[in-house]
């Protein structure tokens, strides 16, 4: 019944590894987002997709690559993880822009 779900909830990995975070929404929304929340709780948008098309691509390193296989899923793949990638990553969805965004529970990524 979870509206926006993310897996895994926690991810601990070594520097240099590649990892993925998955996001699924069952709300029928057409727009999905990835946000990064740093240790000071500052939230910043990374990407957004509308109907599987990339709409927003903020100044994020190329090591981060979003993939949207369908409207209900938006995954985030991170290559060559760095210490500075440690953060909580939130997925969100909405029906179009300028509308309430529903957030997932977050994935806490720790890079050692």
């Amino acid at each position, binding site marked *: 019944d979870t509206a926006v779900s993310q897996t895994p909830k926690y991810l601990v990995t070594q520097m240099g590894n590649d990892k993925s975070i998955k996001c699924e929404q069952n709300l029928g929304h057409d727009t999905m987002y990835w946000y990064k929340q740093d240790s000071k709780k500052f939230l910043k948008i990374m990407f957004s997709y509308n109907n599987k098309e990339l709409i*927003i691509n903020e100044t994020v390193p190329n090591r981060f690559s979003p993939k949207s296989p369908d409207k209900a899923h938006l995954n985030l793949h991170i290559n060559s993880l760095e210490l500075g990638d440690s953060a909580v990553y939130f997925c969100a969805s909405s029906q179009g822009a300028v509308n*309430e965004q529903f957030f997932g529970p977050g994935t806490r990524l720790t890079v050692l």
Partner: protein
Amino acid sequence: AQSVTQPDIHITVSEGASLELRCNYSYGATPYLFWYVQSPGQGLQLLLKYFSGDTLVQGIKGFEAEFKRSQSSFNLRKPSVHWSDAAEYFCAVEGYNQGGKLIFGQGTELSVKP
């Protein structure tokens, strides 16, 4: 460029007391404004939003916010705080035709004293 400032990093209020959380934004036109709440270890939940019309908007959990164009502010208020309101509160702005790009403030952590 759009920006949002929440001047108070941390606020403590007594249970039953009134609450006001400040939010100032910078944007060239009338923005779309939001307040979200984040409980510990949780995602964000929308409390209320302002798009146009009546400048006093009502939200969930007894919260309200007032848009003041002259002050570029969108302060959040609650007449009587409950212990369960302890959380992190984020003000956010979205500009016209920005494709859903929310710009968040730094957040205000609310603690509630019994």
